[in-house]
């Protein structure tokens, strides 16, 4: 009760209502600014080819950010998404190689990959929601466990993906790049997911788990489902990264975990749970992608690129928070 005590003022500005309704609006604004800046420093970056490249590179992060969003909705966090991505990447690479790299081998490997990722999500869900261990520490531990499995499956990075796989991912159908179809499919899935009952339930749990429990919601099951969804979208991220890098690497996802958390926050989702949108997370992932390319286009010397990129993400985060505070609460 104390959390909700002070903001009972119904008077709000028009923009306030909009941001209230679409929490990702500030992120969208930052995205537009970044696109403009990219275009200013490198006009070619707004070309069809460059955008296709950007999307194929950052599709995995978008998927991973969506994965992370589903646990953050309920006030949880998953620090193992990157490790799940690595594990699935290794599993499908090894299976596709063993099974000969044909069409059925690829589909079969992807199916196994989905099973593996969902199992990982289940394990996380059981550890966090059923055994009630601290989400941050528990998923950190499972991330080490999953990385260990990935290293067992594929000890050294480098096994290539079959040509069929990466040619499909990087190819075109009816003159439209394959990744665009994936983006369209993702958009449709996300729109459907927004209307799902589970989304509302997860957000209600994120608001206050104890009250949701008293109110009769099956809190444990809802949090568990969040982790399973997270595992599923981590698999999709793994399929994308495999298409993009065309090889297996047991450590490929390690650095991506916190990027996914950053993307979620940049997209206007509250880490404490209860408020946010998957759309925002996708935009957040794109912001991170555009920042890296901008840093490159401005001509930052290579040894300064990390520093500048870090600063730029901080600035984006601050802008987002400022806009939300100004027009929101």
């Amino acid at each position: 009760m104390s959390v909700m005590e002070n903001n009972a003022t119904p008077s709000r500005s028009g923009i306030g209502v909009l941001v209230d309704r679409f929490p990702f609006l500030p992120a969208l604004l930052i995205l537009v600014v970044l696109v403009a800046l990219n275009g200013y420093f490198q006009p070619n970056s707004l070309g069809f080819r460059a955008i296709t490249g950007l999307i194929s590179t950052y599709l995995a992060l978008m998927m991973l950010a969506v994965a992370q969003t589903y646990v953050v909705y309920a006030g949880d966090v998953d620090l193992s998404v990157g490790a799940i991505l690595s594990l699935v990447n290794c599993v499908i690479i090894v299976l596709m190689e063993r099974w000969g790299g044909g069409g059925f081998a690829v589909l079969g490997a992807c199916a196994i990959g989905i099973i593996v990722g969902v199992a990982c999500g289940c394990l996380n869900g059981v550890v966090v929601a059923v055994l009630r261990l601290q989400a941050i520490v528990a998923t950190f531990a499972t991330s080490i466990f999953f990385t260990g499995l990935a290293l067992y499956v594929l000890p050294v990075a480098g096994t290539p993906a079959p040509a069929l796989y990466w040619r499909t991912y990087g190819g075109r159908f009816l003159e439209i790049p394959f990744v665009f179809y994936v983006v369209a499919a993702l958009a449709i899935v996300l729109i459907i997911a927004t209307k799902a009952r589970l989304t509302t339930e997860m957000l209600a749990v994120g608001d206050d788990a104890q009250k949701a429990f008293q109110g009769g919601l099956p809190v444990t099951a809802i949090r568990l489902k969040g982790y399973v969804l997270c595992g599923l979208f981590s698999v999709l991220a793994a399929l994308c990264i495999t298409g993009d890098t065309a090889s297996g690497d047991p450590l490929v996802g390690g650095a991506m975990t916190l990027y996914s958390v950053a993307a979620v926050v940049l997209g206007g989702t509250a880490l404490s749970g209860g408020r946010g949108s998957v759309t925002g997370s996708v935009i957040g992932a794109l912001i991170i992608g555009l920042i890296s390319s901008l840093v490159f286009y401005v001509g930052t010397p290579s040894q300064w690129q990390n520093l500048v990129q870090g600063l730029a993400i901080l600035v984006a985060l601050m802008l987002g928070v400022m806009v939300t505070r100004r027009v929101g609460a």
Partner: protein
Amino acid sequence: MSHLTIRGARKVYGATVALSRGDFDLRAGEVHVLIGSNGSGKSTLCKIVSGAVRPDAGEVLIDGKPVSIDGPRAARALGIATFYQELSLAGRRTVAENIGLPTLPVRGGIFVDRERLRALADRYISRFVDVAGEGFSADTRVEQLREDQRQLVEIMKTLATEAPILIFDEPTSSLDRSQVERFFEILRELKAAGRAIVFISHRMDEIFAIGDRVTVIRDGETVATSLIAETSPAGVIRQMVGEQEEFAVTNGAAPAESQKGGETALAVSGLSGKGFADITFEVRRGEILGFGGLHGQGQSAVLRSIFGVMPAEQGTIRLKGEERTIHSPREAIRCGLAYVSGDRGRDGVVHGRPILENVTPIHFLRNRLSLVRPASLRESAAKPLSALKTRFAAFDQPVNALSGGNQQKVVIARWLIDRPDVLLLDDPTKGIDLQAKADLFALIRSLAEEGMGIVLYSSEDAELLTNADRILVFNSGSVSRELKGAERTRYNLYHAAYEAA
């Protein structure tokens, strides 16, 4: 048609018995009032029925069949719905979503059926729409609503379950007259339709307006169940007080009126703020002034505002005759005020730090110390700790290693190195054992005798009656009665606390 019976329910938390023998009988077609003073065990009894708490002993029967209620969902499956005093709403969800939350209508297997949800919500909202006030609609998010409107949403949510057994735990505490009347109209309809309703309230007028039977709980035991038509407010209060103490003047060491001529230590006049209005009182040196009444009627808020935690909006505070404006606890401490809260975790103990550091922060602040010799610091810390009979092994032991009672002694000891003029005690004995309580009150009395002015709020009425020289009874944020001398009886205390505001 449901008939709920509880027999011999018992619940123990650690060393405290929350409920020793709870009996309750609820029939279809009645509004059954449950009443008892602070900490008498009625909430525990309610929680047993709603599935939030599992009894250690005793049985729950529905229609004569023993059932075990393992959680809120199990309760719901058995046809029991609960209005929670602290509300069970998701702040960022809309009113409609909250009303439908436990069982959101589904379309196509996974989607929320917005139309049916809307229809469901509208059915219940329409009953209250003309009394709900401004800004209340199905699409408003709950966090944007006023307190009374949130309470209405929780009522609608409870009603929307259409459960045969409904439990309302203080559903009317923030509602205005017209809202309460509308709610009672609905309760009467439900009663006529054969629902069984439990109603908890502290307002006698409401209890007698809506109740059919009343069950009184005292000290964890069911005392009696009577028909409302055959009893009176005074009769109910007498049952809550207990026969033996009915008109007895309080015993104990309290009536120390000797310091009558003592000068005023703290004078407060016209103090108003969030949760209280127009509070005026004086504490003399050597006096223990008690704050009584039900939980959360503004007692804590007044103490915290005097101490500068949430400064008051209006009114004056005089310390030793001098007017002071206190904006923060830091200023309050410099002015010679001390505050000890029952919520040690939030306001008292510095977690994980050694005892020595926990005893000395006020010493540092009042003397503006920056460097000290540990040996001399230990010396000054040892005196108050031993005066309080604090049991501990060494000064560098972390404070968490102590029991609740000893932790509270450490917190109090911190104020005794440099004596304050006024000591504000905010329910200081919450969760501490009997021996520690006795030590504490002995100390408080001797501090008063040495000339300190003391304000004591306690949620345990017995503590107040035996220790306070005067008692101000709080009701809905203001003082409804002052009890002096022989007036300090349990009966008078309850009478003032339970009167309609």
